[in-house]
């Protein structure tokens, strides 16, 4: 079989590059990371004709080859390194028919690298409505390339693109303009010094602050010819280069592109008038947030109840089918309840990712950035911090990564530090179960229930704390960093169903698998610790209990034995040891164990309690019912009451309990200093607030 053709997919953000990628590869894709850095690497396989395959690499979106972020560095690093395993046989540059002028800038740069290049003009379905006519043959000639006119939305033009990829050897490799003619003396000298090198590649190596693994930048930079240029001179030259490229593009498009201006505006202008309005814009934004949280809570309750019951049933059935023994106990009392504790939150997490990806796909997120920039700046953040803060409600890890497009380092650092305060989906399991236990299931009017309002308040609390912490950090951190802010306002689009679904499936899968591994391990450890004890108090539990309580029914005796055993197991002793620390917050030692284990990841809490409570219990019960039945050992009455419940909710709202987030913060800030500060200060805050809340409410 022939070797697969290596294809790199490039393009500006918002051109529908991902849609083209999804169309080419279908569900045949993989998401990973580039080695050593956290930039997402998306790959997939596309079948062409006669058994020929193409290996498609979806590179991060870039406006040009002048890198200003890690994501963009990846692109340059790959395109300059012929020995890289992913170095493309053919580059596919995706552009959007409505922003062709701007999109072509990147195209001309890639052509300069002398890689066979195909130009995709996407969103062709919009041409008619926007009054756009294109002279494709003329464009192909002027740009010295082949063009595929594609509509990812209507699935048109993909076959043309596939055919072009297949016959990539026929594509011209030469540039489409002489871009480096703006400083003839400088470049003549450069070429003389390195006669065997491509001039444009040299120019990129000189101007870009990228760690080229295979290219020895030092050697170039120390050569005298290069030292002539100061940084500001280089910047001038880059400006000239950009102007030169635009002159060429403008000339080409003057001949090949006709836009009927009247048709070009319309929907967009009307929507912008409302959605970016100085008053209604904010009103609508908060309305949308309200709807999202209400929906997450209400819509997902049905599948969640089903999953909860299914796991209780599964555990019970396994117990009755398999012969009893320690191994079966491990499965029915340790693993199944532990996993059930996480699977149950799939519906909610999926809904959250669904909404976030719709907001992003539709182009609305940029309007939010625009609306919020001024307000956020007062707190030392940027409008662009809104995207991490909103996506932090799904997970802090992608949120921390999403701070990369914030231009000012200070604004970016503050955003990274406060993002873990936003209510991530891992907190949701804890919140939901506690809310269900301690907040009455009543409604105000007939839409908003107390329970969903409590949840909404917790989300609000997360944001408010993040903002307050940002304000504080803004005052404390003494850092000078020049800030500039440029954001594209893309046109509104109806989100593509396929893109949204793929995104939701990928993200949910990553969450469940990532959390699942930790939870599985922890629930096995916990089960072992809860099922064995260090001394005879544990092994002789039956005799001790029956000796003490002679007048109990068999059923009650069994329960007493189970709880006596648990108290004298390894975990029981460990829990007792930390009880003095958590008792002032209104918790017993079991909750204490739950909190300790959830420093690995918050969602472990529910799984832990599920495992601890199910050890030794006979009945087919859901986690919630078991927790509701717990009794406070000191005061009597339900353990999970209003005071301890609120205290727990607040503890989880503020505590930094996620190893993965700490790891990602370390990587993004390149130092242990910031994650350690996060961990210590957030834990102290959480303990303090929970303590005060319980002492007031009890």
């Amino acid at each position: 079989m022939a070797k697969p053709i290596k294809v790199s997919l490039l393009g500006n953000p918002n051109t529908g590059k991902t849609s083209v990628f999804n169309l080419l590869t279908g569900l045949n894709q993989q998401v990973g990371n580039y080695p050593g850095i956290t930039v997402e690497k998306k790959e997939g396989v596309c079948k062409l004709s006669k058994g020929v395959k193409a290996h498609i690499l979806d590179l991060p979106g870039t406006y040009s080859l002048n890198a200003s972020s890690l994501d963009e560095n990846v692109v340059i690093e790959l395109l300059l390194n012929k020995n890289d395993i992913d170095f493309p046989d053919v580059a596919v540059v995706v552009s959007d028919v409505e922003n062709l002028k701007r999109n072509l800038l990147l195209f001309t740069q890639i052509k300069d690298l002398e890689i066979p290049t195909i130009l995709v003009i996407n969103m062709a379905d919009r041409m008619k409505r926007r009054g756009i006519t294109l002279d494709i043959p003329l464009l192909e000639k002027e740009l010295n390339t082949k063009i595929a006119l594609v509509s990812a939305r209507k699935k048109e033009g993909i076959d043309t693109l596939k055919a072009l990829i297949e016959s990539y050897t026929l594509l011209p490799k030469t540039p489409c303009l002489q871009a480096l003619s703006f400083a003839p003396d400088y470049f003549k000298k450069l070429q003389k010094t390195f006669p065997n090198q491509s001039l444009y590649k040299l120019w990129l190596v000189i101007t870009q602050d990228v760690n080229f693994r295979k290219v020895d930048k030092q050697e170039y930079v120390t050569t005298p010819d290069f030292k002539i240029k100061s940084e500001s001179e280089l910047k001038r030259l880059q400006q000239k280069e950009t102007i030169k490229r635009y002159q060429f593009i403008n000339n080409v498009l003057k001949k090949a592109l006709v836009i009927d201006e009247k048709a070009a505006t319309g929907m967009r202008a009307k929507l912008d008038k409302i959605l970016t309005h100085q008053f209604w814009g904010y009103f609508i934004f908060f309305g949308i947030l309200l709807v999202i949280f209400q929906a997450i809570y209400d819509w997902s309750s049905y599948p969640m109840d089903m999953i909860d019951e299914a796991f209780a049933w599964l555990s019970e059935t396994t117990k009755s089918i398999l012969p009893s023994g320690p191994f079966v106990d491990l499965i029915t009392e340790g693993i199944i309840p532990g996993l059930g504790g996480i699977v149950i939150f799939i519906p909610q997490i999926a809904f959250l990712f669904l909404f976030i990806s719709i907001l992003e796909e539709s182009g609305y997120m940029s309007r939010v950035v625009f609306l919020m920039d001024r307000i956020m700046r007062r707190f030392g953040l940027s409008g662009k911090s809104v995207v991490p803060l909103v996506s932090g409600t799904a997970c802090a890890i992608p949120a921390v990564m999403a701070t990369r497009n914030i231009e000012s380092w200070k604004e970016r650092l503050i955003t990274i530090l406060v993002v873990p305060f936003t209510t991530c989906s891992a907190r949701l399991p804890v919140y939901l179960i506690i809310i269900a236990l301690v907040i009455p299931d009543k409604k105000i009017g007939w839409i908003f229930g107390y329970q969903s309002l409590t949840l909404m308040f917790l989300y609000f609390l997360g944001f408010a704390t993040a903002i307050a912490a940002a304000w504080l950090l803004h005052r404390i951190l003494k850092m000078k960093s020049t800030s500039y802010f440029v954001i594209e306002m893309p046109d509104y689009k109806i989100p593509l169903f396929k893109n949204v679904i793929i995104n939701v499936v990928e993200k949910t899968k990553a969450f469940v698998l990532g959390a699942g591994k930790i939870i599985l391990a922890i629930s096995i450890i916990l089960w072992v610790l809860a099922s064995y004890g260090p001394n005879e108090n544990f092994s002789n539990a039956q005799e001790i209990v029956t000796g003490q309580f002679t007048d109990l029914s068999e059923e009650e005796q069994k329960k007493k034995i189970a709880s006596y055993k648990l108290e004298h197991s390894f975990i029981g002793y460990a829990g007792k040891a930390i009880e003095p620390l958590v008792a002032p917050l209104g918790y017993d030692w079991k909750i204490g164990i739950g909190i300790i284990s959830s420093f690995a990841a918050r969602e472990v809490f529910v799984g832990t309690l599920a495992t601890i409570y199910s050890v030794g219990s006979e009945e087919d019960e859901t986690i919630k019912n078991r927790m509701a039945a717990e009794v406070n050992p000191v005061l009597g009455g339900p353990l999970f009451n209003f005071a301890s419940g609120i205290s727990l909710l607040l503890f989880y709202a503020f505590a930094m309990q996620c190893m993965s987030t700490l790891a990602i913060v370390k990587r993004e800030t390149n130092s242990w200093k910031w994650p350690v500060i996060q961990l210590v200060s957030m834990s102290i805050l959480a303990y303090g607030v929970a303590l005060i809340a319980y002492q007031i409410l009890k």
Partner: protein
Amino acid sequence: MKTTIAHLKRGQRALIKEITSDRIPLKLLEMGCLPGNEVELIQTAPFQCPMYLMINGSHLAIRKDIAAQIEVQII
């Protein structure tokens, strides 16, 4: 006094004169903010910042301090 993008009123159009400052980010140039191109102010957030502009057919938003460095001629 020089007229800059920061002086534009909503719906007003202007031509970009010269880019003189090298404090202006290259990214802005790459998005079409170049001498001779047309700029229109579409919307501003409260307190005139950020400014939502259409430059050379591209829609983008920038803060007022950057806008105040780009000299224009109102048309």
